């Protein structure tokens, strides 16, 4: 098998392993990761300038921003790699990352981290699984599962330095899914992968929704929009925008209908959608309808009303989009 594979996890690990190998019980905090006013300087460079962030438990959370915005530093602080200069970090309502408390509960794909060059892949993954608190047999089984997930089972005994960049990347992603981590942080998971592999990784991330919290950082805004249900935009070390993807892109507030050459029954649409704001952008031949969502009247209902009117007056529909794209929102906000 080649490539990142769609696999059902071995559910033998039904109980979560904690730092001491015990079972975690009790009510779950609604927030998996919270950063409040976090600052960090590297010499003269202010990497984070008071970042506020809340990642709800069970969400697939996207972290976007330009190069140098502070995404990787945010990840580093969440994982305890980097010490913040100020502010508070909280994981599961239990304080900042502490390996004795969070071992096996937080997993990460670190950016640019290299696996040991001279160690067979299987040995490295078993080592990681054992350090997570798993027993020998369980660790071997989980390592085998991770290799299968990465599509490199046949290379289990190969040394890392003999593998391609793509294979190593997939193994590095798969190691983050060993065990039953509650929070998985993936820093640029699809960068450097071919489109097929990238798509498989996206599918795997989406499949984790509700089972665990996944935070994905990426430059690819279309990817974030497709995969994530929550998003935060970081720029110059601050979170400039955060919320659900639906809210940020206005999916329940705005509908855009692009028309091909032909009639534009604007007045008819305005009459049909009385109470909503209807604008016509001549340059892009797009009707922009802004509405207030309420029970019984969502985006789909507005689209239905608008399309009936347009088609009834022989308009030619080219495209219908709910809200703005994340990319457009990002460009407008930055």
């Amino acid at each position: 098998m080649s490539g990142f594979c769609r696999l059902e996890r071995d559910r033998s690990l039904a109980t979560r392993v904690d730092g001491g190998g015990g079972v975690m019980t009790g009510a779950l905090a609604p927030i998996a990761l919270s950063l409040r006013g976090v600052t960090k300087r590297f010499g003269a460079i202010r990497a984070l300038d008071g970042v506020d962030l809340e990642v709800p438990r069970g969400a697939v959370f996207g972290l976007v921003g330009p190069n140098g915005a502070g995404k990787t530093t945010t990840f580093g602080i969440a994982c305890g790699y980097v010490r913040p200069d100020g502010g508070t970090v909280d994981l599961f309502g239990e304080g900042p990352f502490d390996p004795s408390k969070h071992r096996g509960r937080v997993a990460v794909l670190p950016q640019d981290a290299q696996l040991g060059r001279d160690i067979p892949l299987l040995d490295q993954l078993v080592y990681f699984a054992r350090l997570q608190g798993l027993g020998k047999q369980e660790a071997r089984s989980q390592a085998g599962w991770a290799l299968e997930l990465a599509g490199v089972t046949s290379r289990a005994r190969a040394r890392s330095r003999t593998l391609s960049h793509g294979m190593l990347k997939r193994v590095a992603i798969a190691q983050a899914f060993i065990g039953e981590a509650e929070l998985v942080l993936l820093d640029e998971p699809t960068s450097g992968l071919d489109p097929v592999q990238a798509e498989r990784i996206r599918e795997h991330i989406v499949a984790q929704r509700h089972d665990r919290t996944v935070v994905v950082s990426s430059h690819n805004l279309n990817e974030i929009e497709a995969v994530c249900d929550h998003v935060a935009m970081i720029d110059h070390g601050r979170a400039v925008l955060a919320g659900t993807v639906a809210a940020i892109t206005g999916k329940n507030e705005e509908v855009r209908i692009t028309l091909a050459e032909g009639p534009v029954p604007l007045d008819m649409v305005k009459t049909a959608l009385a109470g909503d704001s209807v604008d016509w952008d001549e340059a892009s031949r797009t009707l922009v309808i802004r509405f207030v969502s309420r029970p019984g009247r969502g985006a789909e209902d507005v689209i239905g009303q608008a399309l009936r009117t347009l088609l009834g007056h022989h308009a030619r529909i080219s495209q219908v989009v709910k809200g703005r794209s994340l990319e457009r929102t990002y460009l407008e906000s930055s």
Partner: protein
Amino acid sequence: MIGPTPFRDMLLVAWFELKEMLRTRRALVVIALYLLGGLVASRVFVGVIGRLEDVAADMLQTTRTATPGALTRQVLHSDAYREALVRLFPNRNVADFLLGLPPIVLFFAWSSLAFVPFLIMMTAADTVTQEVQDRGIRFVVIRTGRVEFVLGKYLGQALLMSFVVLLTGFVYLAVAWRGLQGFEFWPTLDGILIFWPRIVVYGFAFVGLAGLCAMNARSAAVARALSFVGLTVSWVLGEMAYRWSDGIFGAAWTAIGFLVPFSHKAALWRPGVAGVLPECAVLVALGLVYLSVGLVMFRRKDL
């Protein structure tokens, strides 16, 4: 506090480190060179004994022996040699202990105590820094603490060093077996096994020193350089402490000497376990103190 889980993690890291080192080309080359050095040194030692015996035979106008060792054995067991050695050492017990050991054991112990610090600096210096540099450490410290990681890494290095020293001992044993007449297998093996743990304990202090000098370095290359600087400074301080401990600042130099592993080397030649135990405890403590000081900084380091 170190509970059962941190201890387990430390052992896991140490075992993985050992396996990794035995697969790394650079470490293997250093170890192979060290073993080769042991082989050459032991052969040179046998050769020198042979030449000395030939000279002695010529002077006495007797027949040269085919394999060296017979005359040396006679000399070592002579009363005159015993008296000379006793006068050389202030402690008669030490002289008696050394006289009871085959000469190849003494050469093994002397050469190992002299060269093990260099072996450690070459293999252990960049072990943590390299992982920080290539960020491989990030896969590990999300799963265990930094203390467990660092202690495990250097424990692995100590295990590697003890394995290499033992292997070198067997090289000496084999060379002496083949090259020396009247070779005494069991006393030689016994002697090597007496000195092996002493050399390992002595080496452990240098593992700690390597950690102190190198674990917070910016890169693996800087780590290696710093470890050799640390070794040199430690040796110079040891020499100064030895020479000036009776001078004006004698107490200060004695205290400095106590903190330097080189100053404790002579005590490792004492006979019996009880004789070396206090010094061994000091050396292990020194190694741990060095590592702890390095760890205090490492725990605050951004990875």
